């Protein structure tokens, strides 16, 4: 049902006609996020320029029961920003100012549309940086990062978005503007900021964020090591951690992923190795050198067949380029593929990888593996060919893998979120009582069910649809961002 003309006029009254898009050609741009399999054209797209304007828009929505969906850069991979048909999308890109960098207190105050990388750009003149580093960091917004509790390769040591956000100003679904969190690590009362973080846009709209900044490490050491098996690589990760070393990042790739990445980038990976690890250490020069020697010894002990140490910033960049290109590059070795995102306890990595290989064999499909080995976050890529009629088998295999992760004591998602994509799998991880309690929290924030309704929780409508195959995000196609 189209929105009542009078309601549209109210939005225009708040924002002015230029910032209210209703032309279907324009609103179509907002029909999906990075999960392109689901598409819904919104009635209206609102583009406020201030927090107060966001609050006024939400008040109009609350008054008339109009559902709204917040949107940052639209890079989400789980369909979190998927519009609601007779609702509005509130785009936050115009709230994109870095309001303050406070080097003495090591923090920055940001509007939600600031991109992740812009934070570090603003902080670096002071020798500071913002730690969480999703691969989409060039374009994804801090508002989206807060909603998704985004992570990145360096989260093993430094934690996720939730560990770096001191306070947020949010517009609640009734249009009130409140601050959650505080200026220090101390808080008064339950941690509402912590509940809001990672709530995938279902509890309100973030309009201002205060983040912690870290000092740029004195030293960084990066190595690339080949191993005779994925299991040997996994053992190296365990031994590094058992030795009391917390690397800044530990990433693993299997033969298929290496083949694709090396073919695409020529970054210097070995083509004949079953597994490769990228290990990065950072810290003070003394500690870093000391730990680096220990890591080399551990690699040797597990039959490392080649150890390449980045000798210059360019070599380090090349190692990371190969790693980060792996996803897009898989397109070179398979016409179609699905990206899965599950987590297992680190010690079960090789067991789960064996299992995935078995499941892939049974399905007659190939799976390439690229993952954050340090925190057990897998990104299996299920390769298939739509033309050969393999779609259904591939989808089954992909959700089978996500559910396998849960069965192994892990999680349905490590970084891409539940959104629209995996809402139907939530009951494999959570019981009815758990989901019901989540729902109570949700309704405490949003009694009218107007804030990004239908996401995160399984609904009959969602579970009747299918997400469809992986399609590159438009920005990936342009080569602007890479998937990790």
């Amino acid at each position: 049902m189209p929105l009542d003309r009078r309601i549209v006029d109210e939005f225009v009254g708040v924002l002015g006609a230029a910032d209210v898009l209703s032309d279907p050609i324009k609103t179509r741009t907002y029909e999906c996020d990075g999960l392109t399999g689901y598409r819904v054209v919104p009635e209206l797209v609102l583009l406020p320029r201030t927090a107060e304007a966001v609050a006024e828009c939400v008040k109009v929505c609350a008054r008339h029961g109009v559902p709204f969906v917040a949107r940052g850069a639209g890079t989400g991979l789980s369909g979190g920003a998927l519009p609601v048909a007779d609702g509005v999308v509130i785009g936050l890109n115009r709230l994109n100012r870095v309001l303050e960098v406070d080097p003495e207190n090591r923090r920055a105050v940001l509007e939600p549309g600031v991109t992740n990388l812009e934070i570090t750009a603003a902080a670096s003149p002071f020798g500071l940086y913002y730690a969480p580093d999703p691969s989409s960091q060039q374009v994804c917004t801090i508002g989206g990062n807060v909603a998704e509790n985004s992570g990145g390769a360096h989260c093993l040591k430094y934690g996720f978005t939730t560990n770096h956000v001191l306070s947020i100003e949010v517009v609640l679904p009734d249009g009130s503007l409140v601050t959650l969190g505080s200026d220090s690590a101390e808080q008064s009362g339950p941690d509402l900021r912590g509940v809001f973080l990672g709530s995938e846009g279902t509890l309100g709209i973030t309009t201002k964020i205060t983040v912690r900044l870290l000092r740029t490490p004195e030293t960084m050491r990066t190595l690339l090591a080949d191993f005779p098996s994925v299991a040997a690589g996994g053992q190296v990760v365990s031994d590094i951690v058992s030795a009391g070393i917390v690397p800044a990042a530990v990433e693993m790739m299997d033969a298929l992923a290496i083949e694709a990445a090396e073919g695409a980038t020529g970054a210097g990976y070995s083509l004949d190795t079953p597994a490769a690890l990228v290990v990065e250490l950072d810290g003070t020069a003394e500690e870093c050198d000391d730990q680096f020697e220990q890591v080399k010894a551990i690699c040797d002990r597990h039959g490392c067949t080649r150890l390449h140490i980045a000798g210059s910033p360019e070599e380090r960049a090349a190692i990371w380029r190969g790693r980060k290109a792996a996803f897009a590059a898989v397109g070179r070795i398979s016409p179609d593929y699905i990206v899965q995102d599950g987590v297992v306890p680190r010690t079960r990595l090789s067991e789960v990888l064996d299992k995935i290989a078995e499941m892939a064999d049974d399905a007659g499909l190939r799976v390439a593996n690229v993952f954050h080995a340090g925190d057990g976050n897998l990104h299996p890529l299920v390769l298939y060919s739509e033309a050969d009629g393999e779609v259904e088998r591939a989808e089954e295999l992909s959700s089978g893998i996500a559910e396998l992760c849960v069965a192994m004591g892990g999680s349905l998602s490590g970084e891409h979120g539940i959104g629209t994509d995996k809402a139907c799998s939530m009951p494999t991880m959570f019981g009815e009582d758990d989901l019901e309690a989540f729902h109570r929290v949700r309704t405490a924030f949003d009694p009218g069910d107007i804030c990004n309704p239908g996401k995160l929780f399984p609904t009959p409508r969602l579970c009747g649809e299918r997400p469809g195959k992986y399609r590159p995000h438009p920005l990936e196609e342009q080569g602007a961002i890479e998937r990790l």
Partner: protein
Amino acid sequence: MTRAAPTTLRPTTPKEVRDAVLDTPGRLAIAGAGTAADWAGRLDDVDATLDTTGLTGVIAHNPGDMTVSVHAGTPLRDLAGEIGEHRQRLALDAARIPRGATVGGLLATADAGPSALVYGSMRDLVIGTTTVLADGTMVRSGGHVIKNVAGYDMAKLLHGSYGTLGVLVEVVLRLHPVPKATATVAVDGPLTSAAEHTARLVQSPLEPIACEWISGDPGRLLVRLEGGESTLHLRVDRLMELLGDGAHEVDDAVWDEHAALVAGVPGLGDNGLGDNGSRDNGSRDNGSRDNGSRDNGSRDNGTGAGGPAADAAPEGAVLRIGAAPTRLPSLIAELPATAVAAGLGTGVATVTVPGAAVAEAHDAVAAANGTSSLRSRSADLDAPAWGPPPSGLPVLKAIKHKLDPDGRLSPGRFHPWM
């Protein structure tokens, strides 16, 4: 102190907790070891107390994953001993205070020690919880993996909830390696000079784990470093150079003085802060000793005070305050504080003020855009436990109403907010 409740229930399994909550009509207090029983708002009358100290033990420790799940009534001290055998620890330095605080109690009080500068508080270390709600619903969130974005993070809601939203029965924690070596460097001086040192320190690459000023005559800045056996001394040298004249290495025991101040009982002599030569023969290697196995206090004696400060009662009222780090020194200077432990990197301080000054102190903190809450105080002190309510209060009330519609759990803890 809270009044004695007519009934005390002491369940030993999550299911018994659920039964106790379901079968006990009326209002319930939730208690751990009682070490923070007099913190925050005073409990109203309750019909029964649910004592969680029977709910103990490690459920699963996975050394390779560096995670552990425990029953919520487990004293952190006991847990520290067990995981310490694998040279792992919960990176929360309440372990230095062997008073028996439970994992559930630490989470429910949102507590943290000096190393929050790097490791954060319980909110940053907890990765999963199981909680019994007022209607007996058993809720699990999170899990055993550190990277996890499925569902709402209920552990955060329980963090700082003081028993008002549910009973924590199981907690899954992320562990860290026990450092190969630690060292503490001290430099004496007033708060202002400590703040100057800290400003330079946080800009240096030295990565301090804790950076705390403790009051005394003239007061002392304590900086803790962690690192490798053969490398730490190099950084200690760099640190001493940075702190300049008078900087010297001190023994770990200096942190007991800090803990006593945090508890509002500077019990070591009049100020406990003057020269204490015997402490200053620095040792770098502390290994698992650092990890809570050191037991220097009797089990708490009902007042909750153990350790070196066991006999002293808090004088005045202990306030926990937080503000942007650079605002903290001037804020503290404004308060009529008699004892102070100030995290100059975190912006979190514990101060003792006269009971009559509590309301005024809350206002001063709020004026600096900070947060404050009342901790230990004498039984007869009638002072507000919390500063002005946060703007998010309506949503907090709504959550309370959804999870505990009849207001059964820990009534009064957030008085006057709720």
